[in-house]
Every structure is written in structure tokens, then in C-alpha cells.
């Protein structure tokens, strides 16, 4: 075999990186487990309420709500399309799994946004923070997701809640990046004008920067959502239920049927969530949505009935 020497220095020994990582993680588990367990609590309670709500509501109510929301923010065509997709998911028999996956994805989304949007805003104001954050984000997006399953399992255990946590780690990067980008793209002259008219920092943020960055931030939300969904199958390896579990079982048993059904469910959910968030990301003028969709319909009906009454009143008064 190779001898230790100038030509093959690798034979002389190795850096024990793997051992270091193992020792480091063990140390973290031994000393900080209570902390990591405490982090689980809010995730757990939110996930439980989502699962309970989506499980308790009759399927057609969910379909109806999705349809109304889609009609409101995008139009009747998208609403009909999404209804067809959801009905299909129901009829292939994966409705409960789809709802569980939806609950997990929504919980991940909420935690990703709660973490990602403030971090993105902060990074846009502090170049130091962005310099620290950037390599971290690169790492989070390029390290294969399987790799951080191990530490997550050791620190948080297995099940749906660690599944949400691993999904947040995987999916939070785009919303941070795009929030940062959106904030940076706010025209400098608008910021200057706000300052020139006496805006405080928070007025500047809420009245100019956030509204102008919103389309870009929403693109980040969309990306984060899609990445959460793509994590569903991988996360099922640490005993996360739902559609991912079906796909994993299909792989394990070489059962093409169950894998297909699970996969189709994931695709259907992806389409629904993608179209809804993309419609939200379109820049829209204030008050425009009040005159459109179901809300616009209700308002116009209410208006005409009011004017009807107004017209009827004088005529009845004349009769009397």
C-alpha cells in the first residue's frame, strides 16, 4: 500500500473531522437538549392546531375556501382549476395525508417567514450581518438535506415537529435572500424623499420600503413554500407522516402504485400553493381587490339592494 511521504501525504494520517462533529454534537445534546426541546414547543402547538383544524373541517369546506380565495386574488379560472385538482386528490384517496402535509408545510412556512422576513430586513440595513448571513445561506441551500437530518434527530428527536424544524432550515434561505433584495431595490430617491418629508425609520419601513419590496418578498414566500414541499419526502425519513410517507413506503416496497398516488398528491398540493402565492405576489393597487371576485360581487349586490330600497322608500311613502 501507499507509504507516508511527499508523494502521498494523505497516507500519513487524517484530520478527524467526523470525530469532531460527533463529539461536538454529543456535547450539544448533553448540555443543551432542554433548550432544543423548548424550541419544539411553539412548533408543536401550531402544528397541532393546523392538523386539528384541517382534519376536523369537512373536505368540501376546504375546497370551497380555496376556491373563494383563488377567485378573489386571481380570478374565476384559477378557482375552477384548483377545485378540479383538489377533487382529484380527494378521489384518489389521499385526502387525510394531503391535509397533514398541508399542515406541516403551512407551519414551516409561518416559522420560515417569522424568521426570514425580519432577518432579510435587518440584513438590508447592516452590511456586516449580510456578510455573515450570506455564506450561511449558501451552505444551507447547498448541503444535501439528508445531512442535517442527523443532528436534527439527535437534538429534537423524530416525528412531525422535528420534520417542521428541518424543513424550516432547508426552506428559510429564499425568503431571507429575496426580502434583502426587495429592500435593496427600493429606489434611493423614494427613501430620500420620505426622509426629506420627516419620516421616522419605522414610517419609512412601513409606508415605503415594505410596500415597494412586497412583490419581491412574495416571490421569496413562493420559493420558500415550494422548497418546503420538496422537503416533504426527505423529512418522511424521520417519521414525518403525510404524502411523503406514502412515497417513501412506495420506494421501500417497490410499490409503484402507492408511490405514484403520494407523488401526485404532492404535485397537486404544489400547484395549488404555487398558483395562490404567485397571484398574491402580483403588484396590486390599493382597494382594487375590493371591487373584484366574491367580495366585489357581495359588495355590488349589497349596493344595488340598498339603492333598490332607497328607490322604493319614496314610492311607498307616496302610497301612504
Amino acid at each position, binding site marked *: 500500500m501507499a507509504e507516508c511521504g511527499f508523494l502521498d501525504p494523505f497516507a500519513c494520517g487524517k484530520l478527524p473531522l467526523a470525530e469532531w462533529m460527533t463529539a461536538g454534537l454529543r456535547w450539544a445534546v448533553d448540555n443543551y437538549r432542554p433548550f432544543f426541546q423548548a424550541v419544539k414547543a411553539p412548533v408543536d402547538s401550531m402544528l397541532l392546531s393546523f392538523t386539528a383544524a384541517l382534519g376536523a373541517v369537512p373536505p368540501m369546506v376546504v375546497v370551497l375556501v380555496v376556491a373563494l380565495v383563488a377567485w378573489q386574488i386571481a380570478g374565476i379560472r384559477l378557482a375552477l382549476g384548483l377545485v378540479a385538482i383538489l377533487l382529484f386528490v380527494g378521489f384518489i384517496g389521499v385526502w387525510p395525508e394531503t391535509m397533514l402535509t398541508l399542515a406541516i408545510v403551512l407551519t414551516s412556512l409561518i416559522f420560515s417567514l417569522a424568521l426570514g422576513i425580519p432577518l432579510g430586513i435587518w440584513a438590508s440595513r447592516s452590511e456586516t450581518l449580510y456578510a455573515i448571513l450570506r455564506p450561511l445561506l449558501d451552505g444551507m441551500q447547498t448541503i444535501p438535506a439528508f445531512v442535517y437530518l442527523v443532528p436534527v434527530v439527535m437534538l429534537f428527536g423524530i416525528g412531525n415537529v422535528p420534520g417542521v424544524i428541518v424543513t424550516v432550515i432547508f426552506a428559510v434561505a429564499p425568503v431571507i435572500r429575496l426580502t434583502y433584495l426587495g429592500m435593496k431595490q427600493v429606489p434611493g430617491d423614494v427613501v430620500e*424623499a420620505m426622509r426629506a418629508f*420627516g419620516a421616522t425609520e419605522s414610517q419609512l419601513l412601513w409606508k415605503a420600503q415594505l410596500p415597494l419590496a412586497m412583490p419581491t418578498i412574495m416571490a421569496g414566500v413562493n420559493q420558500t413554500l415550494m422548497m418546503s414541499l420538496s422537503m416533504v419526502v426527505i423529512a418522511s425519513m424521520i417519521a414525518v407522516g403525510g404524502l411523503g410517507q406514502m412515497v417513501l413506503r412506495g420506494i421501500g416496497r417497490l410499490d409503484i402504485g402507492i408511490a405514484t398516488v403520494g407523488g401526485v398528491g404532492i404535485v397537486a398540493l404544489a400547484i395549488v400553493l404555487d398558483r395562490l402565492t404567485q397571484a398574491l405576489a402580483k403588484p396590486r393597487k390599493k382597494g382594487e381587490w375590493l371591487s373584484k371576485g366574491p367580495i366585489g360581487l357581495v359588495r355590488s349586490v349589497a349596493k344595488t339592494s340598498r339603492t333598490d330600497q332607497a328607490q322604493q322608500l319614496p314610492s311607498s311613502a307616496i302610497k301612504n
Partner: protein
Amino acid sequence: MTDAVIECRNVWKIFGENSKEAHSAVIERGLSKKEILEQYRCVVGVADVSFTVRQGEIFCIMGLSGSGKSTLVRHINRLVEPTAGVIRVANQDVNALEGPQLRQLRSQSVGMVFQNMALLPHRTVIDNVALSLELRGMSRADRHDVALEKLRLVSLDGWGDRYPDELSGGMKQRVGLARAMAADPEILLMDEPFSALDPLIRRQLQEQFLDLSKVLKKTTVFITHDLDEAIRLGTHIAIMKDGRFVQVGTAEQIVTEPVDDYVADFVKGISRLELVSAGKVMQPLAAGQTPAPSSPSVLASDKLSKLLQVAKEHDGVITVSDGKRPVGVVSRYDLLNAVSG
């Protein structure tokens, strides 16, 4: 001078990390702009500028791009912090103001109009105009009342519910003007407001602005790179170059007595007909001398255009009087000399 609304004394703005050191080096050793850049890696934006703007005046600062005029005007509402110097606005030292006082100055006393309008694209015209009132916490109904009135002032009534992207460039800048005036500020800062507009619209807006300032009498600092514009609008004009004021004076002084070749070069193409007065070009009468009684007479304050009118109808010399008695004469030769500059 009690009526000085804006007063700048020895204002310096040096950009860069070592600006303080660079500034003391300039003061002690009189380094040039280039030497400061080489030795301290600092860029001089404004160099030792002093000026006073009085109540109701339109003070034009004219210079080419990079001359520091936009940087200078931003010191007045402290969008830019000076490296050295004193800026007093309405008897307050602007650099001594704390956060809330500074915001009050910006939202109530100083209105600003920007070259690229800088309207908020996600807000309607009326919400844009009402911005400074909103930032200061006025109720929606009240600020909309004020904003409507200001929109009427710039003849944009009826456009309040539109969005900025539905307006033409000239209309947007009128919104910008209305926004600057919404808080009824004492001072207007205009940073090349009409430069991005086409010549016809620019001319219209200049006239509209002149009419408005005759009525409202706002103290205005007006930045421009167009000498024609400066002459048309300015009570006083400052010519700026490389961060310094080269010359400050009335339009007539700038045109007839340029201090150096740089200014002379600028004023070469300017028509003198409406600027130069008869008093400037006449030959004063020697003591006891009287002009021919038949010659036509003009006032010393009449402009060259008036002299030309008179000269078209009369052949001989023209008498110039100060209103009571003749003080000088203008021959055809003098007149031609004056017109050609």
C-alpha cells in the same frame, strides 16, 4: 439681517473615511481637490460655501453635474451632514437639531422637490401630496382637504385618485410641487425639478412656478444646470464649480460682469435684451451738458429691448433719464456694442 431665512457659513462637505483629517489639512495647508483625493482618498463635494437667502427670494444655484449643487442643497434640511460649517434655517442651527426637531423642520418648514419626482408609486396622487401631513399624524380627512387644495393650486384637480404611473412627466412634477407645498413650508428646495422634462413643458412649469411664487412668496433655493432657467427664475444666482461658488449676483451682474472665463463662457449664449438696462450702457452726461431736446427718452432701468424699439423709430442718440432729469445718452454704436456683448 433679520430677514435672512437660510444662512450658510463656510460649509464644507468632504466624502470619505478620513474627511475630518482631510478638512483640517485643507484649512491648514490649502490642498487642492486633487491633492485631497490622492493623499486622503476623500472627495470634496462642497468647499467653503457661504450664502444667505432672504425672505421670499428665489436663490438659484447653477452648475454642471458634479459641481456639488445637489449636495449643497441637501445640507439645508440635513439630508447630508456637513463636514464643517454652520447652516441656519429660520434662526435654528440645523446641525444642532435632535431627531424630533429635525423631523419637524423637514415636515413643516422645508418642502423639497426632486429631479426624478420620487413619488411613491403604490399610492394615489392625493396620498402622495398628503405625505408630509400624514407623517406628522394629521387625520385622513384633514390631510385630504389640504391636499385637494394644493392639487388645485397646480391645476391637477380631479387627478387625486390616479396613480403616479398614470400621469405624464410634467404632471408628476406638479404633484411633486404640490407635495412639497402641502405642509405650507416657509422654504422650498427645488433640486433640478424641471430638468427631466421636455423644453415646452419645462417652460410652462417655470411660468407656473413663477406665478405661484409671486402669490405664495416662498423662500426658494432652486438648483439647475440651465443658465436660462436660472436667469428666468432667480432673484439671485450663484454659479458653482468644483464645490465652490464662483460668482453670486443678480442675473444682470452675472451676464454683464462675469468674474472669470468660466462664467463668461456660460453667459456667452444668453440673450442680453431683457437683462441689461439702459443705465449700464449709456454714456454719462458731463456736468452742464444737455442732450438734444428732440431726442427720445427712456428710463435708466429700461432694458435693451426697449432701447431697440425706440432706436427703430428714431435715428439719433437716445436720452436716458433717471425719471426726473437726463443722466446720459445712448448712441447707435453703444447700443450695438451692448447687444453683441
